[in-house]
């Protein structure tokens, strides 16, 4: 997954990477770190930013120092921590109470219509991958799936052996909300959906 174009555009050769935080390599690493959900290992991170592992290791180390206030700038409200063999940004632990208050002070969450519909699709189609849900819903469902995961309403069941796509299913928490004991107790919806689902979704039946 090395990205030659980026490498060229960035133009940071190994020679300059000792002053890593000032180079675009640090920026590229920060960009990746900002959007990942799970800790990322050095090798994967190096592949993502198209730089050698040693340079990435060094840059990550200098970012850790930088965020901790040992660099040119102030200490940050977040920190870069190595957890389970990977790196990820976390809110700095000093602010845990602040975050707990913030999170706890939010109004009791209600799921959006989009989230509820996505949940319904997963409940009836499980195990189902994100892209399958997206094609049924005809919209991108990434953030909604994240919400449902965070709410513990769905869970990752297994990865598809061929594609590696994660299959999702619903949890006992959903059953409790619905007041049923098993997913089999969901009311049946039209058999048309299962039998003709594909033709139906793409067909001109409207």
């Amino acid at each position, binding site marked *: 997954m090395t990205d030659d174009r980026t490498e060229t555009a960035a133009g940071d050769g190994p020679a300059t990477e000792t002053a890593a935080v000032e180079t675009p390599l640090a920026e590229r690493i920060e960009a990746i770190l900002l*959007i990942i959900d799970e800790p990322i290992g050095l090798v994967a991170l190096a592949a993502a930013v198209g730089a050698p592992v040693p340079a990435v290791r060094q840059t990550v180390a200098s970012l850790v120092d930088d965020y901790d206030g040992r660099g040119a700038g102030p200490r940050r409200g977040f920190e870069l921590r190595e957890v389970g063999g990977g790196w990820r940004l976390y809110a700095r632990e000093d602010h845990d109470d602040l975050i707990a208050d913030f*999170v706890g002070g939010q109004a009791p969450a209600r799921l959006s219509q989009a989230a509820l519909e996505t949940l319904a699709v997963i409940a009836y189609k499980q195990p189902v991958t994100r892209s399958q849900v997206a094609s049924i819903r005809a919209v991108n469902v990434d953030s909604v799936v994240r919400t449902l995961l965070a709410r513990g309403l769905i869970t990752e069941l297994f990865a598809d052996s061929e594609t590696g796509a994660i299959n999702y299913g619903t949890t006992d928490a959903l059953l409790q909300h619905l007041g049923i004991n098993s997913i089999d107790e969901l009311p049946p919806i039209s058999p048309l959906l299962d039998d003709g689902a594909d033709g139906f979704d793409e067909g001109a039946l409207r």
Partner: protein
Amino acid sequence: MAPSPDPTVSPDDASPADASVEASDPGFRVSLSNFDGPFDLLLTLISKHEMDITEVSLSAVTNEFIAYLAALDGDEELDQASEFLVVAATLLDMKVAGLLPQGELVDAEAVALLEARDLLFARLLQYRAFKEVSAWFSRCLQREDRRHARAVRLDEKHRRKTPELAWSLSVDDFAALALLAFAPKEMPHVGLDHLHAPLVSIREQAAIVVTILRGTEAVSFRELVAGVTEPGIVVARFISVLELYRHAALSFEQLEPLGELTLRWAADSWSDETLATLGADYDR
């Protein structure tokens, strides 16, 4: 290139001298006795009162447009076609208003406010303004699609602090939501609803189908819809046939593709109560 029989109609072949100009304007062009140029320009002229709408042959424009469409495909065709429908409908209204100063389509009060034609011009301009600004929307949406915001799941330790989820759905509500979610989304089609087609009840049509079928040995679908002129009723009867088949209430045979569809009543036990829930999937 547009497979147009008449070279004067085919925009890009018409005048090679203009080729360079036309190359930058791939849109629909029209050649009429009193106008030759991009369709857009025609609209501009009309909207500036520099051309009289009553002088424009709408049927000629339409013929040309159909020939033009034949050379397009896919989404482009759909977009162009829908745009043309909008504009053609407006042209038609403008013509009506142009031909009938007190056009019957025009509300008397509205006429009092604004001359009907101005109103229609304004409508055309309004539509075009929204069409133009939609390009801005498209640009912004595409640009922003490429952006990546931080949207990371809360750490487990913080997640436990989040307030309980407010849940108010019963299991039946949830199933109804599932039906809604599985319903096909946007379908490329030309909307007909604005023609105010009367709503057709599948259940009523099913009741008719049941009555006909039970009273006879076998009936073809053609006979089942004989004399029906309303397409919605034909569709509803067909759907009710499918629904009854699902309930094993009838059998059908068709000897060859697209051949005659012969229907037979086949229900061992039939309760008219079944009719009450028939086609519930189509409710909403």
